[in-house]
């Protein structure tokens, strides 16, 4: 019988299904490695009994380390294991234990990670989630943390980290995504920001959560001409981790975006009639086309749609790189439509559209999101 099943135990004791092992694994292993590396064992000294006891003592230390290190982040474990192995050898360095302080640090695993690209996207997403700054990782990648609660269940909450790429384009998403995944072990990661949208399908300020990503850049140049070799990807889960059940009206998504808009300082606010601003969320039969081009000619997006896939309705420069970089961690993309891939300048809409995408994501997380790893909740 476990503590969870025993009605006699107070709720505070349910965490004691296992012993009160509250020491974080990293700290526990630091202590164990210290004792291993300073283990004063001279196999030549003392009687067989003494040597036997010393060997037993060290075996106990190693068994303790083996148990505690199982919960370490793989990076940290690999680093620590080297010291554990060194402690066994005759060539153990006397001061090796002083290097333990410089071992890699990994923050607590989080539930949700969010990647943004442009400064407006990062700012709008931080605001939508009420995020705070955290200490910088070594390479100065900015990381902000937030916590949001499940609607109707205040006991369930999600920890969120938000970060940004250093530059736009698919190729520059790999490193920040890898850093976030390694450091925070998120259950799911989202790309949030802006995209160009087909004018037939989207109004400015709408949000697209595409079912597929179409990478249009790969092609082969032949004497007959250019032969396209596009690539596709899509989320692993057909239900999009609960998004197929998302009802934008139930959570009053449009009202939230209008409130967000109203609270903006003047310099961030596009000149529109708020009463006519009715942002929508569109996901069904949507594909986002990704390449290395900023589409501003008013034609190319439609050409991609006509040439390859009628569901192509939006375009950006990061979705495919992002999806590939996630290394099988679940992902989704939330993009606010900030322009129609045409020459019209709509700079102020970047912030609002990114905010709409972030608010849509938050609304979804609070109400309909189904975490891929249910054992964590």
């Amino acid at each position: 019988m476990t503590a969870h099943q025993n009605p006699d135990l107070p709720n505070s004791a349910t965490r004691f299904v296992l012993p009160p092992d509250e020491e974080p694994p990293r700290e526990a292993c630091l202590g164990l490695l210290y004792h291993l590396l300073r283990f004063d064992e001279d196999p030549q000294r003392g009687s067989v009994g003494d040597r036997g006891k010393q060997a037993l003592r060290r075996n106990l230390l190693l068994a303790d380390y083996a148990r505690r290190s199982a919960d370490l982040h793989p990076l940290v474990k690999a680093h620590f294991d080297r010291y554990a192995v060194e402690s066994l050898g005759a060539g153990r360095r006397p001061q090796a234990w002083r290097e333990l302080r410089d071992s890699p640090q990994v923050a607590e695993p989080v539930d949700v990670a969010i990647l943004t690209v442009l400064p407006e996207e990062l700012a709008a997403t931080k605001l939508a989630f009420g995020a705070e700054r955290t200490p910088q990782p070594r390479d100065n990648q900015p990381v902000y943390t937030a916590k949001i609660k499940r609607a109707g269940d205040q006991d369930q909450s999600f920890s969120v980290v938000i970060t940004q790429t250093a530059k736009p384009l698919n190729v520059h998403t790999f490193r920040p995504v890898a850093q976030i995944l390694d450091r925070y072990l998120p259950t799911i990661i989202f790309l949030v920001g802006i995209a160009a949208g087909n004018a037939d399908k989207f109004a400015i300020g709408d949000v697209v959560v595409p079912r597929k990503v179409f990478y249009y850049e790969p092609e082969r140049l032949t004497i007959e001409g250019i032969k396209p070799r596009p690539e596709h990807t899509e989320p692993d889960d057909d239900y999009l981790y609960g998004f197929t059940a998302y009802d934008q009206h139930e959570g009053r998504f449009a009202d939230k975006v209008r409130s967000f808009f109203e609270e903006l300082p003047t310099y961030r606010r596009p000149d529109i009639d708020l009463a006519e601003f009715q942002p929508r969320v569109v996901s069904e039969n949507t594909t986002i086309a990704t390449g290395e081009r900023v589409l501003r000619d008013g034609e190319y997006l439609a050409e991609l749609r006509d040439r390859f896939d009628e569901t192509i309705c939006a375009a950006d420069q990061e979705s495919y790189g992002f999806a590939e970089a996630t290394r099988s961690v679940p992902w989704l993309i939330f993009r606010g439509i900030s322009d129609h891939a045409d020459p019209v300048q709509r700079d102020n809409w970047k912030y609002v559209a990114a905010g709409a995408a972030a608010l849509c994501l938050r609304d979804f997380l609070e109400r309909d999101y189904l975490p891929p790893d249910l054992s964590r909740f």
Partner: protein
Amino acid sequence: MTDPNVFPYYVQVSRASVEPVPPERRDTYEFLGSRLLDHRQVRVQQPRDSVYLTAEQTRTTPGQIWDLLKPPREPNGRPSLIIFDFASNPHHLLREILLHHIAEIATHWLRESGRCRIAILLPLLPPRSSLFWLIDNVEGGTESEDSRITVVTNDGNSTPNRLSKVDGHDYSSLQRPSTRDLKERLKSRVVRKVGHYDFSSRAEPHCARFFFEIEAAEQEIGELVRIWAEDQIRPHVPGGEFTLVSQGRESSRLHTAVAGAAAALGCKFSPLDPDGPPFRVDAIKGVAALVLDVVHTGGTYEVIVADMREQGITFAPEALAVMTTDRELPLTDGLPKLTSLCDSFERRKMHKDDCDQCQIGLPPTKPTEDGQIGLRTFDMWEILNKASFKREEFGPKRPRLPFIPDLGEIFDDHGAWIAYKIGDLLESLRIGPDVVFVCPREPHIERLVTQLGVLRQNRQLTVQIPRPVLDKTKLDQTLLTTVDDEWHRQLRHLGQRNYGNIVMLDEFVISYGTAKSIARLLQRREFGLEHRAYIPIVDFSAGDMPLPRTFPLYRLPHP
């Protein structure tokens, strides 16, 4: 002529089960017997066990005391003294209705027996309006010199004045431990917590390996502060007027102890809590007599004195620290002389650059909240590396491991801290203060249980089960011959009350054989008990814990 008999009844309220009568009570009974019976030698029929009322009985059915107190069998014609000894109970637990029952029992017995006298020992005299004074209805009451009933309080007062002033003083001394005893008890209740304590001083930042917790010594501190103020402050301040000022960060027990001392002294009291409301100058009457919890470098002490002097407060020539931790106290002139109740304790202080735990990046431990309940690996392994490893001396017949750490040694060195951790664990599991520990009767675990008793003011009850009982595969035969053993009686009493706060305790667990035996024993029909928690200090087993509600302080799977 045959020496007269003294029949004491040692009564405790709000207790879980019978407890042995402290042997030193005999001195009190002999003293009273000789004085009240006017006979040099008396024969004390010292009881083995206490008479007790549980907390629930004390609250709801105190009349059950009638069933528990049976008159002694004494041949007619022989004078005797019956003593109802309630002296060791906190005054506030002797509720009005219980006092009324005591008075009625005393009155009834006096009527039934022609030659006995009765002495009722109480911590304090009840107010004159109390129903207790029903005893005055006895012929002569308590006012007459011929009265057969005497009430004596812990401070030596008696009514009627049956005890002379000298006898009253001697009686109160018997009730009160000596200053030396108090200091020894205080010292035994100081918990040396092991960790990584981050301290900053004016000179340089440093760490300490130990932190000293004094919260379990509230009673001793209160009494020692009272004695110190009476002897060292009152005679040396103008008009004998002073205010006790206690200083301690989050030391609510220190404040309570000093407040109690102030009440006993009849002086004012003012707490000085850095995290509490601002200090009020008008709270001081006369001079300020400062009492501090723990003084490390003396830096805080200097700042406090300077701040208070700035507000116009005058200090007594002496200040008191419950304990100091650094021998070289850099005190400046002009401060009240600082004395300490305990000898200096070693904190193992070091500069941060020399601190190994800082070197490897371990975070500091907070002194007043350790955060985790289990033992830290760094601390546990420092302890294990110093401990001897021996063959299993106790436990089941077949040893399960070749060598194990000598936990008896570990309990001697760190027992108070481990007991403190157990207290934290019980609190986190919401297992109240009236806990009953059930453990094997073995020397190592007895040492830990002794420490638990010291810290918990002996409020817990311990039931120790002999190893042969636990080792028997068929318990029926063994139990038939053990019904008079103390453990059996204790478990029966607990079972009759359906007692719930039972915690199994052991030094370590390997195969869970002992734990399962104890659990099965508790569940037997004659007891019908269930454990709320099983606490092995170290869990050497690998894999899942087969016994529910197991909470080791440290898990160390034996390879």
